[in-house]
């Protein structure tokens, strides 16, 4: 009788130890997984909070021309400056007058970077060309979305009387609306 009790108690005790071991391993795995994801989430939010971009007017320029059909156009070079965190330019996306454009090639849609850029360091700027814009006072817009989802929206129009481009910029980051 005594041996039966102690044997069964030993089995139950060992099973409790195994339960504790299994649960601890599962909790540890889940905690490590969530912790790593949480660190990524914090990094992303910090990156978005510290993303500050603007138009560098000094390095932006405009030029006019006439195509083979006699139509007048202007080319705009927009210098986009980072005043916040380092941004990775190949992961940027853009829309020009609402339509998605490729930013690494100017020939396919008249919008593209001046050269192959990698990282945009704080304080530096990169130049984006917008070419063959019909020479009139219609308003145009470019929205650049960075690798972390933050964006810079640039609206402009060409004043044919004063022969200057008036530019307006706004910026933001994706935040959940509920």
């Amino acid at each position: 009788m005594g041996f039966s009790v102690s044997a069964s108690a030993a089995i139950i005790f060992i099973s409790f130890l195994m339960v504790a071991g299994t649960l601890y391993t599962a909790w540890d795995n889940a905690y490590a997984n969530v912790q790593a994801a949480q660190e990524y989430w914090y990094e992303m939010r910090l990156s978005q909070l510290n993303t500050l971009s603007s138009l560098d007017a000094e390095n932006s320029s405009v030029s006019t021309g006439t195509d083979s059909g006699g139509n007048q156009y202007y080319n705009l070079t927009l210098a986009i400056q980072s005043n916040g965190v380092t941004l990775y330019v190949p992961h940027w996306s853009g829309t020009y007058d609402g339509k998605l454009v490729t930013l690494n090639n100017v020939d396919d849609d008249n919008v593209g970077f001046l050269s192959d850029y990698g990282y945009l360091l704080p304080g530096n700027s990169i130049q984006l060309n917008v070419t063959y814009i019909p020479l009139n006072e219609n308003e145009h817009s470019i929205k650049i979305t960075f690798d972390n989802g933050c964006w810079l929206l640039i609206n402009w129009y060409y004043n044919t009387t004063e022969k200057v481009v008036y530019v307006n910029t706004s910026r933001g980051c994706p935040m959940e609306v509920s």
Partner: protein
Amino acid sequence: MAAGGPASELIMFIVAILVAGSVAGALAYVTNDIAHGINDRGAMLADRLRTDFAIINDPNHIPVDTGTSPPTYTFYIKNVGKEIIPFTSDAVQVFIDGNLVPASQLSFEDTGGNTITSLQPYQVGVIKVQYDLTSGHTYTITVVLENGVKRSLVFTAP
């Protein structure tokens, strides 16, 4: 009586071991189930934290194709997270001003116009929405992923 003592002891021992074994087995089963649950819940939470996307349209210039009835509006979705986003009508729900857009009125494409089922990190996908909107009015589109991550964009219908 002298022979019944050890036999009953043996029977009691076997019964005790069987009962203890059953309890231990049940505990192991339940524990395994809980451990799987903890792992699954952790993975789900981690997946949600690593998932992020943005609707990158210019809110004042939404591309529209008026050649269809109702018109087709184009929304660009950029995966800015670390996880691959399932990109089908089963996995993604679209609401306009709180009204669910039926899956039959949605199409999910890459930027080349090909149908796709997932979005890689930093890839841009296209959701085409066939819906009746009034030009000049402001609407809110909300895109909800299968793990509950959602983003909204307030835009003016062209």
